[in-house]
Each structure stands twice: as C-alpha cells, then as structure tokens.
C-alpha cells in the first residue's frame, strides 16, 4: 500500500525535527539496518531503506560555518561535513535548511542556488527550482536548499526526502541500464546462435541476466511510488511532492527505464535459452556417440564370438 503523504510525512524520530535556525544536513539513504544514527524517515518500498541523519542532530559551530560558506559562495568546509565511507550506503543528500518567518522573503540566495547546481555532472543535471505557496526549494541530484516557514519546513523536508530517495533510486537504475548496453550489443548474437566457443561465457551471461532481473525487480518496487496518485485535499507537502515528480518526469522516466529493462531481459532470457538448449544438445550428442561406441564394441565382440565358435 502506498502511504498517504498527508499523514505519513512525519519524522520517525522526534529528535531529528528541523531546528529553528539555518543548518546543513548530511542525509544518507541506506538499507543497512546496523546503522544506529537517527532515522528521519523510513520508506515503504520493500527494500527497507531509511533516511539517516549523518550529521549531529543539533546545530553547532560547524553548521554555522557550513551555512556561511554556502551563502558566501565558498566550498563547504570539509571536516565533519562528509559522511564517512559507508560500505552499505546507497545515496547521499546534502540539504541546506533555511527556516524563514518573513512571508515575502521567498528568494533563495543566488550563492546557495549556485552551490546546489554545481553538484551534478556538467551538462546533464539541471537545477529544479520550485516556489509554491510560501515554500521555495532548489534541488539537483545530491544537493538541495529548502526555504519555508518554520511551521511548515518539517513536512516539506520529509516530502523532499521522499522525492530525493525515489529519484536517486530511479537514477541509479537508469545508470545501470545505460552501462548494460555495450555488453548487450556484444551478447545479442548469442540469443540467436550459441556454439562451442560461447560455452565459456555462460556464467558471464548468467550474471548479467541476474543483474537485469534484479534491476527490473527494483524498478517494479519503486514504480508505484513514482506513479503515486495526487491526494485530495492537498497538503503543502503533497503539492511539493507532486510538483517535483512532475518537473523531474519521474513517471515517464520510470516507463522508459522499464521498457529498456524489458529489452535487456528479453535478450538475456533468449541467451539463457540458447545456452541451455546448446548444453542439452551437446549432452545428447555425447550420449549418442557413447551409444554408437558401445554398439560398435558389442558388434566387435559378437563378431569375435562368432568367429571363435566357427573355429576360424
């Protein structure tokens, strides 16, 4: 069942509520259940993923320095800002939170926009800027700036995290599918003809088939969340979630990646079928030869016996 954002956008742990001052948060989306750091939210998507706050949950001097650096257009201070190398991590998000009481102050400073925009690969990722009903959010993969009234910022942050997680999941599937095309081009002929020289590639093909199936499983798990219906009456959080899903084309991207995975799956399924048919045929061939040899041997023995009985 898809959770209703109007009711489900509440922090798992009250201690990780948004503080009243500006701060930078490092958030890790992970499936590692051993991580004991504060959980901001859990995702109901069968993978058991959670959003974990990897920075301290209270603002400190380091936060002040990080905010000042971003707003001054400088690089983020390194110490303590980067999460440690995680063997289980999946996606990271650095979030600049700017609680704002003045309803007219809805413009995110250009230095913060610049900071958010410069995270992605050049020429590929675009900054999405949404200003809606008093909340302004700038997002690019891996970085986001959120400005909203303190009373609304918590629910908007959770809606943003929800979007960021599923977008990152989809992007990782898209990247994995893209990497699969060169292999597919090489492997596609084996879906038609499999011969003795190809036998050594069986385990390689099997690994790729399993990889494609795993990607397809993950895509089908997140698809209901990409196609989440609009809720009514809307909340600010649900409106922001919808706008982000719409602007980043999650639904159609999900459809495209499913189509691509279907093609890859079909090719590797055919390769598996050909390989299996070939191996069975080879075994049958071997068996036939063994039968021929045995029959030959039997014939020879019969001839020998016959000759011996006739006293030749």
């Amino acid at each position, binding site marked *: 069942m898809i959770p209703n954002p109007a009711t489900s956008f509440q922090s798992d742990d009250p201690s990780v509520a948004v503080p009243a001052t500006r701060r930078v948060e490092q958030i890790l989306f992970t499936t590692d259940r051993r991580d004991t750091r504060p959980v901001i939210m859990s995702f109901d998507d069968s993978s058991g993923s959670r959003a974990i706050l990897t920075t301290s949950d209270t603002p400190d001097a380091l936060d002040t320095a990080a905010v000042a650096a971003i707003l001054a257009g400088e690089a983020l201070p390194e110490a303590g800002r980067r999460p440690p190398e995680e063997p289980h991590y999946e996606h990271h998000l650095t979030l600049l939170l700017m609680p704002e009481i003045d309803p007219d102050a809805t413009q995110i400073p250009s230095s913060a926009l610049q900071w958010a925009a410069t995270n992605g690969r050049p020429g590929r990722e675009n900054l999405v800027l949404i200003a809606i009903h008093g909340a302004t959010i700038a997002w690019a993969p891996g970085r986001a700036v959120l400005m909203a009234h303190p009373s609304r910022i918590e629910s908007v942050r959770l809606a943003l995290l929800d979007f960021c997680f599923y977008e990152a999941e989809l992007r990782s599937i898209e990247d994995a599918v893209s990497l699969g095309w060169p292999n597919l081009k090489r492997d596609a002929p084996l879906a038609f003809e499999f011969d003795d020289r190809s036998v050594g590639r069986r385990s390689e093909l099997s690994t790729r088939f399993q990889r494609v199936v795993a990607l397809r499983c993950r895509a089908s798990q997140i698809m209901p969340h990409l196609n989440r219906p609009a809720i009514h*009456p809307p909340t600010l959080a649900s409106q922001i979630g919808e706008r982000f899903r719409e602007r980043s084309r999650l639904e159609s991207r999900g459809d495209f990646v499913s189509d691509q995975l279907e093609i890859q799956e079909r090719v590797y399924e055919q390769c598996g079928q050909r390989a299996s048919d070939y191996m069975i045929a080879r075994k049958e061939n071997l068996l036939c030869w063994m039968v021929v040899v045995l029959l030959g041997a039997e014939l020879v023995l019969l001839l020998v016996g016959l000759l011996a009985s006739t006293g030749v």
Partner: protein
Amino acid sequence: MAMRTWKVAIIGGGPGGLMTAYLLEKLAASPIDLTLYEASHRLGGKIKTMSFGSTPAPYEAGAAEFYDYSSIDDDPLRLLVKELGLSIHPMSGSAVVMDEGLLSNLDDVRECLGDAAARALVAFDRSAQDAMSPRDFYAIGESYREVLPQGLGCFGELLEAIDEPHAVRYINRLIHSDLATEPQNTSVSYGLQNYLMNHPAYMRLYAIEGGNEQLTLALAARITARILLQHRVTCVSRDGAGRLRVEATHTDSTGSDSFDSVIVALPIEHLAALHFSDPVLAQAMQRHLDHHNHPAHYLRITILFDHPFWRPMLPGSFFMLDRFDGCCLYDESSRNPGSPHAVLGWLIGGSSALQFGQLPDDELVRLALNSLPSQLALGRGHVIEARVHRWLHAVSALPGGCTPLPIDRRHQPDLLHHPNLFVVGDYLFDSTLNGVLDSAEHVSGWLSDLINAGPGVLL
C-alpha cells in the same frame, strides 16, 4: 435510378449543432443534404474566444475550459480534439482566497480556518469520494443517470449536515462558480460532481491552444453543411408530405424549407422562443421544457492589466475568490505560455450572476477590481481595458431534470407523432461541453442508423 439524399436541418450553430453536423456527416453512409441555421452572425455559441480592442490579448468570453476524463476511460471530447488536430494546454489551480487569506492546501485551511474546519473538510471529502467513485463520476457524465440513491434531497441539505460553518463556506466558495446555482437548487449528484471535479483522480482541466473557439472553428471548417448565419428559426411545422417545415427570418424576409429530419440544438432559453405549430408537438416540447428548464447563470468580467501582478502570489491557471458568493478568477494570459499580456477573468455564477448582471458594465468592473484581496489591491491602478459578458439563463442548474429521463426520450420529445424531430443540448447530460458531445453523438448515431438502414436509393 437516383440516389436519395436525406435532407436534415440543424437549428443552432453552437457546439451542439456543429458537433451533430460533423458526426452525422462522418457516420452517414448515404449522402445527406445538411442545412445549419444560426440566428447570430457567428458560430460557436457558448464557446467564444475574444480579444481586447487596445491590444490583441485573447481571453475566453464563454466556456472557460474542457474536462478531461481520459484517466478513467474513453473521453470522446478529448478524442475529438485530438482528431481535429488541436493542441491542448493543461489547466490547474487549487487556491481559494477567503477573508483575505490565501488557502492553497490543507495546511493553510488548518492555519486560517482552524483544526475543526480542516477536519470537517477532510471528512466531507472522504464521504464525497465514498458516495461517488471516479467510475460513478464518469458514468454520470456518460449517461447522466442518477448513481446515488433517490430521496437524498438537494445538495444544500448535504452541506447543512456539516457542523463546521467555515468548512461549509469554504466548500461553497470552492464550487459556486462551477455550479452556477445555489446548493439548494441542485441535486446531490450534481453538487458532488462539481465538488469532486477538483480532485485530480476524477478529472483534469484543459484549454485549447489558440483559444477554445478553435474547436468550433475546426468543426465548422470540416463540415460541408449549408451554413445560414443570421437566420433565426421562428417556427417548425409539418408539411403535407409528413416532412418538417422550418421557417426562418433573415434580415426582413422570411423563408421556409422542408426536411426529412430536424435537429434542434439550442440552449434551453432559446428553445422556449421557438414556435411549434402542431399542437401535439407544441405540447411535447412544452413538457420537454418544463422538465429541463432549471436555469443557471454566468457572468464574466475580464480585465486587461499592464502586468500580471497576481502571479507571485497566485501561480496556476485559476484561483477562487470568496466575493460574489464565490467566483473563479482565471489567469487568461496563462493559457498561452509566453504571452506578454496580463488578463484576469472573473467567472461569477448562480444568483450573484443574475443579480449583478443587471448592473452596467462600468459598475461591474469597479466591483470586480474591489473584490481583489488587499495583497493584490496594487493591481487596481494598472487597468488598460475591461469587457463584460453575460450568460444569464444559459445553462441548466439541474441537468437531466429532477429525475433524468431515459436517454432516447430526452432526445426525442414526441417519438410517436414526430419521430423525425430530435433535440441536442448540454442540459440533457451534465451542462458541460462533454455533455453536449454525448448528446450530439447519441442523436447523430441514431439518425445515421436510420439513414443507413432506410431506402438509400430512390426509384
């Protein structure tokens, strides 16, 4: 041996008449001689895209938008728009301005109207969705049958059952301009339909790029019918051969012609002015009128400004305002992305439209400007030009009548004696453009079956 040509008259050059002509020509397998009478100098009826005099800024003076049901099932109007090669522009808006506060979502409702109002609104929304599923909503639009149990009373009674006055006022303001009547004057079904149309799972809104009138222009361009503009049909009678004779006045002269079939595609207010000389037919038409005549009203005030001062506060295609008992403000210039113009259109409905419609245009423009919330008061000094369009008695407050009749009976008031006279109208379905297409499809399908099955060759 000569082919027999079926001679058909369509009275009314609005969307209903044009759609019927288009579909009839498409469906009929034998040649038809089609004549379309239109009393005014233009085709299109309630679909009317206009421009200001001082600058070519377009705006909708009539039907503001189209309803898209395609997320539930086939949407014939959406398919027709596609078939005609017209591009569409989605429309959206959820903001309601109440007591100077901007309510864009449930958080705003909770903050401005209180927790109790937000809870009451959510409870009403749930019960509305429970009472009418998207499939029921679609079925109502498709056949205009009552999907809810009879005896529920009027929509006003349903709202009175909500014990939170702020929530009632919010719902009233939200739907008033679409309803075009007061809740006590309409059915529970129609009221719920107008409430649920704000829910994206039930339907979406769109406009046609270049103006909604592109639809009727495209239909008019594709039909081969003889179009008689400024020909007001005054009387329909039966001639000696059992055919229907249509009398029309043009300038000062009166002419008449006989037809195998006549389709009356007029709004209910104009239908009342048509004379039927046969007493049996006149009685049948009077019964038809009595059943369907539940007038609702619209008033449109459209103002051209020198810049779109409202956009930072109110993005989207439209928003609701609590003035005039609840009216809808369309950002007309948002229909054409990249448009340099700034046009706001007030759509006032129901008894307010009737009451304010009596005032002179200048006074209406002044009232409209004064209705802007204080945050937008700045815009009052930036007016370039204003236009007023009155659509009084133009739609039905109770489409289908108190108890909707079977579909065939709705379209053929006197089946026994005048089986060759049909009526088409939005008031027979759901008072929408989708409804008028359903009506046109029904009649054109029926008549084309008769034409295709009849003696196609005259010896």
